[in-house]
């Protein structure tokens, strides 16, 4: 799917002091955050790595906030990323990136979908909903680097906005030295997604990958 990526030789360089690579997936219920988390954790597990996933599902399965912690590395035990300990943020919605700010720090590389999904009440009570630019602005003051990406738009191009989570996955793979290999992610996609939507999701993945390569080269 994505040629020319570094192999696992670089793997442990990212795993820090106690050997951990912490991915945080933040989303709104129904956006595919849970599926993205499953693909990431299945891929890591198939690479023989120690994986721990924490999910705060609660009542938030439909239209509420959903946060997943995917933790990879030999020293990982608990289901929660420590304060400021997130290595990669994958936010499927801009405002949801704000909600998890306490997990972010200089070590964080943030991939943020810029298409907002405002709660119904924001329409009713004229509550202020932050613009994507504001979100990116404040995130840049916390994290090492922020990659804003119109994942929802690219997913539409791929065939359906429902493949937006795989656009973000493609963008993750295009980050430097991703801990998870493209081939294991591709297998995990095939194992986790409905077969009839697999081709569309792979298109979405590729569009995300290319968009991220463009961003990294100042596109």
């Amino acid at each position, binding site marked *: 799917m994505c040629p020319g990526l570094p192999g696992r030789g670089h793997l442990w360089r990212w795993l820090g*002091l*106690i050997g951990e690579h912490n991915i945080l997936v933040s989303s*709104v219920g129904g956006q595919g955050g849970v599926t993205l988390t499953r693909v990431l*954790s299945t891929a890591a*597990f198939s690479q023989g790595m*120690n*994986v*721990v*996933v*924490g*999910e*705060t*599902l*609660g*009542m*938030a*399965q*439909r*239209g*509420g*906030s959903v946060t997943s912690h995917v933790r990879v590395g030999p*020293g*990982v*035990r*608990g*289901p*929660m990323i*420590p*304060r*400021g*300990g997130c290595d990669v943020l994958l936010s499927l919605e801009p*405002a*949801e990136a*704000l*909600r998890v*700010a*306490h997990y*972010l*720090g*200089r070590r964080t590389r943030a991939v943020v979908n810029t298409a907002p999904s*405002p*709660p*119904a*009440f*924001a*329409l*009713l*009570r004229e*509550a*202020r*909903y*932050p613009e994507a630019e*504001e*979100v990116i602005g*404040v*995130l840049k*003051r*916390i994290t090492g680097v922020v990659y804003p990406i119109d994942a929802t738009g690219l997913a539409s191009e791929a065939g*359906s*906005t429902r493949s937006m989570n795989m656009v973000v996955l493609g963008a993750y793979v295009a980050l430097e030295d991703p801990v998870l290999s493209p081939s294991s992610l591709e297998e995990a996609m095939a194992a986790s997604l409905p077969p009839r939507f697999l081709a569309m999701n792979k298109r979405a993945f590729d569009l995300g990958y290319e968009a991220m390569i463009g961003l990294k080269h100042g596109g």
Partner: protein
Amino acid sequence: MLGDEGSRVLLMGNEAVARGAIEAGVEVVAGYPGTPSSEVVESLIPVVREAGIRVEWSVNEKVAFDVCSGASLAGARSLVTMKMSGLNVASDSIVSMAYGGVNGGLVVYVADDPGAHAGMVEQDSRLFARAALLPMIDAWDPGSSRDAVLEAFEVSEEFGIPVEVSEEFGIPVFVRSTSSVAHMRGGVELGPVRERKRAAGLTRDIRRLTRASPAWCKEQHARLNERMAKITARFEASRLNGLEIPGGARWGVISTGVSRSYLVEAVERYGVEGLATLSIGTTNPLPEGLIRALVDRVEGVLVLEELEPHVEQSVRALRGDVGRSIRVLGKMDGTLPRVGEYTPDIVEVALGALIGRDLARRDDLEGPRVEARAMAPRRPLPFCPGCSHRGTYVALGQALRETGHGEEGAIVVGDIGCTILGMHPPFDSCWMEVSMGASIGLASGIKYAGEERPVIAAIGDSTFFHAGVPPTINASWNGADILIAVLDNEITAMTGHQPSPSSGYNAAGEASREIRIEGLLQASGVERVSVVDPYDISASRAAFVEALKAGGIAAVVLRRACSLVARRIGLQKGALRVSPEDCTGCLLCVRTLGCPAMGVSGEGRAVIDEAACAGCGMCAQVCPVGAISGGG
């Protein structure tokens, strides 16, 4: 779930509980859905035939426990699952079964919710195990969740005490988890599936199996105490506990549940050396010998446990035996919180306080972090697109205004489940919720106190079957003038669409009898019962108006399948569309319905997201100029 011995798989804590039951040769499993416990039964459903297990969603946790008790008395290993609220429902039977004992192993899985992620109380069920005089084992990750279940079945069957008139028998054993553990995923190496061997079956033994004679009852109580003493000794040596005291250790940490993992990480992260540690899996009875062994050797002890200071109280009590002063850090001295779930940071700071190092994470980013979090908009759960409850609350609001009871002129008592979301705008309907089925009794009491405004109990179908029938009979029998609205979406929706008795199928997906709520209401003596489709707002409003005007006890059943289920089984209707030429931009549709599929265009007109629209057509009914059409 039925993978081979020795294979390593990624499992959720709750899935690991299910796997543990399979490895233990379980034959009967029952539960009532409740976050964070539901996935145990759900992950067993696909394998019931192959594994030869009888699995059911029962109508409530007490029934589920009674079903499993019966199976156990008949000799089968049984597992019953519930969230902490359900433990309260089942408690009457659990306490009694502790006295009579079991035959086949009986394991009660209960999941607590520190952090209140599921929107109920932060109950610490370890204290209930003490009250019931029953053993409890706490899990801390998926692997230990499986191990805890295996151990619990062994303990349940092992400590029978032969008495004069009875054969040997065992007692129920709790396995407890918490949200973070129940929903955590991690690698688990599958173990062998034990060959089923039936415990002795049921024989008539009223000296053991009834409580009506005080003498026999006290005999059973004494026997239970003896049994717990034996279990205490077994738990001292359990591999679910771990004591490590390196030479020259000055400090000790006792940890339970998810804190065990956070402690291991913190010790590694900060290179803390020479720390004595006791991790406890058997939380009732506590391994006091191990605790004493640790306390004996150190100058200070930190106790890590979420919610109540259960272990800490024991540590403080044992401290007196040591005969020298030992510092105890926990909740009772204010080092750690009693509210909310623990995080790695809470554990790190507390560890720092013990060893005299500042382990608080500090950087110069707190300002922007606080600013970012303050910018995040609240995201209260809305009703889904096409949710039938939306129609109910819109119609109820209209009916109350029509009968002169608008603007807090009537009291709507909510109940547990999706139906409570009527508390949010734009409906602003429900005033309170207490527990499963409580709305009807609450409404009755409010009336008894002389409230003159109409009082309406709003309750979902699964909640009505669970605990709504006795208060309905009570209200009817005792003459409470209330209106009962049963929001029947034919499913237990909030917890993930488990079937309810009105679904027409059971946990295994097999066709079943469909229990009609209107029949139960009528049989309870509620004579004025109407059944309407909440998608039809004017018909629903008319039903409410009629019931409100008539006075006395009345009920309206609002029946329409959950829209998410309809979508899943392909019964979804086509999307609606707003005609931009006809829309006047009054946005009455958006303001009345709060539908997540509706938005406002740049020109200030209503728009519908076709992918999200469920085709319910309520917006077309609300639009005053007929600008919305389609669906069907």
